């Protein structure tokens, strides 16, 4: 290495001032992060951005969780008691589990309806959408059973950074976008769609499908929480145009495994509904916005149908 020229030595002399300034700046940014997190924590708990706040405000006894298919499948006003639909677009089954666990803090809620996407039960933490559970991160962080599990959905590249306000990212979006309102499903926000005759692959799977192993621990926690809270869990597979359960042979073992993993829970398994009334609902294209999302008319009809099915198959003291 050559010797530096005199000019270099002059301009390169150590500077405590500059170093201290950068350190102070880092410390200030971390402090800003903590203070912001505290403020957001308070605001979140008292705003409509929190699904639990919506549930409390409506004094609901029945809550729907799930993906966009559940969001558009259940029309709360068609349910015989107080229902809130907090299903969200683009979620995986992981969100439903997280939300179901968080709902144990709502003593009025007696029944949780989990709407399972007809084509998306197999995905686990490897699904890119799993990270969207961070939209309800402020709630999840308050659930000791699953808080530690939340970290596993953080993208690997972001793992080393831990900012306190980071967990409010998803909810801050919602405040801005006004997604968290408890209102009739915003059908207008659905992109343009149309129903198509589904192309069915009825070949039996080569290997028996299993629920993704990364979900096992989550299901175990859900199982324990539901037993402790005594809430009823209603499992439904949201409707798909012209598709019945037996049309999708690889889904059936997954649903069976899910039910088995939740044994002991107050469970109402409606995943195998194939009554004539249901068949007529899924055969009518007017009920569908596209192949998996219902129209308002379809949602009203489906909600009433599920209400009757729950009443007849799993009566409880909720109503």
């Amino acid at each position, binding site marked *: 290495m050559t010797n530096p020229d005199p000019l270099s030595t002059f301009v390169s002399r150590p500077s405590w001032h500059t*170093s201290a300034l950068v350190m102070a700046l880092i410390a200030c*940014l971390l402090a800003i992060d903590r203070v912001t997190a505290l403020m957001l924590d308070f605001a979140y708990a008292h705003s409509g951005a929190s699904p639990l706040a919506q549930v409390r405000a409506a004094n609901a006894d029945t809550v729907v969780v799930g993906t966009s298919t559940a969001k558009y499948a259940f029309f709360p006003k068609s349910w015989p008691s107080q229902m809130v639909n907090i299903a969200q677009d683009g979620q995986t089954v992981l969100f439903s589990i997280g939300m179901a666990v968080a709902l144990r803090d709502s003593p009025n809620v007696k029944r949780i309806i989990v709407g399972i996407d007809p084509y998306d039960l197999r995905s686990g933490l490897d699904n890119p959408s799993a990270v969207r559970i961070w939209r309800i991160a402020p709630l999840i962080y308050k659930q000791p059973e699953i808080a530690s599990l939340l970290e596993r959905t953080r993208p690997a590249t972001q793992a*080393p950074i831990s900012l306190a306000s980071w967990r409010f990212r998803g909810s801050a979006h919602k405040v801005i976008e006004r997604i968290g309102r408890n209102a009739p499903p915003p059908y207008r926000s659905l992109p343009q769609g149309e129903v198509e005759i589904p192309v069915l692959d009825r070949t039996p799977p080569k290997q028996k499908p299993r629920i993704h192993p990364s979900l096992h621990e989550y299901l175990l926690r859900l199982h324990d929480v539901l037993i402790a809270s005594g809430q009823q869990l209603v499992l439904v597979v949201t409707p798909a145009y012209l598709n019945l359960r037996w049309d999708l042979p690889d889904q059936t073992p997954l649903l069976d495994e899910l039910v088995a993993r939740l044994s002991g829970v107050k469970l109402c398994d409606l995943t195998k509904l194939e009554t004539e009334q249901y068949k007529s609902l899924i055969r009518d294209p007017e009920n569908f916005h596209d192949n998996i999302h219902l129209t308002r008319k379809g949602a009203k009809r489906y909600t009433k149908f599920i209400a009757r099915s729950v009443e007849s198959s799993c009566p409880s003291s909720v109503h």
Partner: protein
Amino acid sequence: MDPHLQIAITLCLAAIYPLLHIHLRRIVLLTASYAFYAFINFAFLPILAGVSVSAFLGGIAVERWRKSNILTTVFIVLLLTPLVLYKYWETWFGSFVLPGIPVSSLQFGGYGSVLIPVGLSFYTFQALGYLIDVHRKTVSAEHNILRFLLYMAFFPQLLAGPIERYKSLSRQLWSAPTPEFEKIGPAVLILLYGLFLKTVIGDRIGVAVDEAYLASTVGWRDAVTATAGFTIQIFADFAGYSLIAVGTAQLFGIDLTNNFKQPFFSHNLVEFWQRWHISLTRWIGDYLYRPLGRLMWRMSDGHRMIAESLTSIVVWVVMGLWHGPTLPFVIFGALQAIAMQAIRLLGPDRPAMMPPWRLGLGMLATFLFISVTFGLIRTPDLVTYAGMLSAFMTLAPGKAPAVEPTILIIGIIIMFIVEFIFRFRPPPRLPPSYTFALIGLLFIITVLFGYDQSRSFVYFRF
């Protein structure tokens, strides 16, 4: 690497850096540069080292036998070999997989089965510039390998530029100046604004652009997203990266070229390309356009129009090919050349004398042209691109989702306001209290409103 993590590490390094002795500073910069690059993919490291050492030896050889054009040509071909092998070979000459390089998806923009080492185009051009400068006697050949390795690998600008000249960057890096106390605040502000552009706008709009290209049937909204949306995405992403690079470098006392100067406020296409990816256009101008122009001038017996047109087409096709190896990239370049020649045919204009409405109209026309042609460097093939263009005529809106549109629109409005202010006024000198308040605000905005799923920078693929 996630930009948040990279910035966190950078800030920690920047806190220690001013305390170090000059030798240690050089070592820290070189080690950090190679470590950041290895963190992306360890297999990329030999390519960077290989290109750097080849250019280093090439510089010494070219200086010694300067009269031999053949030797310079041999080294230029040698430096271009990895770029051709990784970026162009499979597309042009058929499938093959390089030994030792992991086959990957398109995460970093590899074409087919070959994963392109990130930043290869950028540091290859930097090496070529050095070699040609030595040949032209603009600089003396470097005999200190560490100094040269540092010039080639300086981490803030390694992956996507700015493409810096040896003369300015190497001297700064080797003198390892202490970052000025007064410049720390502005540097962090620039860095965070770059992060804002990338995570709040670029990443968010990128999802909609991807979806628009995946749609089976497209409508006018998809077409707008795929063209204008992509133009905003690529600006937010690339200008964001460049600002992060400039801000990061300033934290270490180094001044880099400002790669973008409010390109969307250009009154015509010629001005646009003087404001977009400035370091590349300058590089192309110095090392390709002017030598080629002189050659064309001689070949065309002094016919200025012919010489200019031919030079422009060749240079812009090369610019297109620099972005990618397929036909859409060539068409992209050719269209820029034709449009710019058409503008030149109209004769010189004086934007300062133009009424505001005419400037505004020119800016709008430039944005539209750029948006439509940028679609060519994003589209997977020409059929999809043609479908997108025809979708402009349809009444159906299409299916492209708007991802968190309110945040996106607010972000874009902020971006355009900042661009507008800097276009027509000199950069304001903010009092320190304003600077640090803005730093806090931008920090919280990027933490809370950055898109959930961070994506790699678009220009990494080029």
